[in-house]
């Protein structure tokens, strides 16, 4: 590999550099944990690499009802924020299980979304938490739900000169992320299951990773859980519905039928865990029992 490295220090300059280059001639570098491997094995051979390191996008900003995470914030910094663990346990679990601690001090949320891998461990929980993505590009700034950012496997709807600036999440939500892997660390999840309970709209959110062609919300399964406190029967029905509706592939990590069984088990456990977290979050209810 051989390229020129550019380090714009403002988003406008970054967008200008991207707009001025032909697609394929320039690649965006955040933490580099995906990109450097692509460059190393020549899957990509850009003339220029645009590093996001000098952009002011490393932050976690809390407000009364939201958390905004800058796209170049290392995952390790999000994981080490005690409030994330307390208020968004599902997000914390998903991040803590990406690669290894040393990998997470480089890898970023923007890079994970930019990659758009169907096996991403972060996209399911972002879908379940209804995350919104702020994008900057030649046309200015736009905001879209993470669902609309993802297209097919490893494809996003980002334009060639667009960059992910940040991700907005609710300030808190009982949530859970569970996965199954052959090895617990540095392995790709066979499937990943995220669940969250949100006060507005359809309360229960269920999203799956390790499915085809991309991570997705399972609205049919969500529809089986009408109330804040579903019965055992409803939880089981939702788990079966998610397993039935999802599309899987067979590959070296798992067969299609094994993935389907995993989804049924993990959806049930994820909803149960989220329910336990809801009762912990409302001590008054517990005190009455």
């Amino acid at each position, binding site marked *: 590999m051989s390229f020129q490295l550019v380090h714009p220090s403002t988003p406008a300059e970054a967008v200008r550099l991207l707009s001025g280059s032909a697609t394929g001639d320039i690649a965006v570098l955040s933490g580099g944990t995906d990109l450097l491997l692509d460059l190393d094995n020549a899957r990509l051979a850009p003339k220029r690499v645009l590093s996001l390191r000098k952009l002011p996008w490393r932050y976690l900003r809390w407000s009364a009802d939201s958390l905004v995470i800058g796209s170049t914030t290392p995952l390790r910094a999000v994981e080490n924020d005690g409030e994330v663990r307390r208020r968004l346990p599902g997000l914390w679990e998903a991040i803590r299980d990406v690669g290894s601690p*040393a990998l997470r*001090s480089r890898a970023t949320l923007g890079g994970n979304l930019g990659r758009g891998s169907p096996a991403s461990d972060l996209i399911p929980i972002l879908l379940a938490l209804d995350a919104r993505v702020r994008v900057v590009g030649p046309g200015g700034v736009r905001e879209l739900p993470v669902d609309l950012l993802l297209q097919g496997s490893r494809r996003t709807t980002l334009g060639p000169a667009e960059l992910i600036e940040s991700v907005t999440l609710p300030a808190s939500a009982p949530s859970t992320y569970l996965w199954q892997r052959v090895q617990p*660390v540095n392995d790709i999840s066979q499937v990943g299951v995220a669940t969250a309970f949100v006060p507005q709209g359809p309360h229960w959110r269920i999203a799956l990773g390790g499915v085809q062609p991309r991570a997705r919300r399972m609205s049919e399964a969500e529809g089986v859980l009408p109330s804040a406190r579903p019965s055992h029967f409803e939880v089981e029905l939702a788990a079966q519905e998610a397993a039935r509706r999802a599309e899987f592939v067979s590959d070296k990590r798992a067969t299609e039928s094994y993935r389907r069984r995993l989804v049924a088990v993990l959806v049930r456990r994820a909803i149960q865990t989220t329910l336990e977290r809801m009762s912990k979050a409302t001590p008054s209810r517990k005190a009455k029992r």
Partner: protein
Amino acid sequence: MSTQRVLRLSINGQPVEVPSPPERILLDLLREDLNLTGTKRGCDLGTCGCCTVLLDGRPTLSCLTLAVLAEGKAITTIEGVASATELHRVQKSFVEHGATQCGFCTPGFVLSAVALLRDHPHASRAEVVDAISGNLCRCTGYSKIIEAILAARPAGTA
């Protein structure tokens, strides 16, 4: 078409100037340009932890890091862990507990442990296991490594 530039790095407390193209990977620069071969190349894919170095004190995989991006940061390799006359207490503990066999993984484990115990001198067993979760060892079976790190905590740690 890529152009060489002199990188100004700080390695083990010493300023170092190395002419380097932008695509130079930190691991290659350390091993091949500077002959600091204590940092090992295992997988070259981010999965084994053999190439771990500290960047501003944080364990980082040098096989997944562009050398230019380490400018302005303090790089610590295994060669910078011991003093001129004495091994670091983590290294001594590895020797005393038989935590190293072929030794290929050892620099990575030692650096992960040094960083952990600097930030959390009284780290629990679970924290030790988490800190070394990205380091693979084909020889020891890990138990002795975990014991060695636990024993390197200050005396009196439960």
